[in-house]
């Protein structure tokens, strides 16, 4: 019978060091590459677009769901009635800059109704959020 030399059992730490290296690397990757976004209460799939006007830090974000309902923070409303809600909010926060996050499948009618309401509230220009198309 041939007898092989048994490897002496390695110390525990040695085997863990590569793992820690990889995990640290992943951690640093996520730290650097990711951007933190505040969580929103509704998830929408944004329409694809090609243009980018690079509007940043728009204070008010309106979300239009696929079924046409409009969210402003915690409140939800039909697009037809949203003008008054937005008008009050804009007066309270004293701003005229509004961004719209509309689902790609949301009725265009609802988005336009919302924009008409915004026009009546004195907002001349809105920012529609899109996703870079493929």
């Amino acid at each position, binding site marked *: 019978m041939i007898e092989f030399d048994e490897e002496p059992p390695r110390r525990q730490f040695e085997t863990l060091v590569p793992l820690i290296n990889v995990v640290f690397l992943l*951690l640093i990757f996520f*730290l650097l590459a990711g951007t933190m976004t505040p969580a929103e209460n509704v998830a929408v799939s944004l*329409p*694809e677009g*090609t243009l980018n006007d690079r509007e940043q830090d728009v204070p008010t974000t309106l979300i239009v769901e696929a079924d046409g309902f409009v969210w402003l923070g915690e409140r939800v409303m039909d697009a037809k009635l949203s003008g008054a809600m937005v008008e009050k909010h804009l007066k309270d926060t004293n701003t005229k800059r509004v961004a719209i996050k509309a*689902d*790609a499948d949301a009725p265009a009618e609802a988005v336009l109704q919302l*924009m008409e309401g915004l026009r009546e509230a004195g907002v001349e220009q809105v920012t*529609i959020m*899109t996703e870079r198309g493929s």
Partner: protein
Amino acid sequence: MFDEPTRKRGMASLTPLIDVVFLLLIFFMLTTSFLQTQSLSVVTPAPSAADLPKDARVVEIWLNGDGSIAIDGKPIERAALTQGLNAAIGERKDITVTILAERGSRTQALVAAVEAARQSGAKSVGTARVEKIAK
């Protein structure tokens, strides 16, 4: 006087460190998003479709209720919209592009139409919603 505390030999246990690093890793994995959003500035429309100009210098983009798109009545694919609009406008840049959204049309089509109108270099872009496009 006092006994010097004997220094511990070797490394302290790595397990709590690994626990914390894993936790941080999972936290960042869940909270970061790699989605690149873009923004598109759009002028808000006047409340009435009747205010829109209706002369020869208007090119209309129809967003039909069934999801199809047409330029001045000619059906066109969404991908070819910019090209088709440029062809419809021709050399005259003093033109107005009107986007008519029929009931049932979707936001994706609206965004595509607005972008095409912007890229065509039209003088002004108007949007309006209509119940039914008169063909």
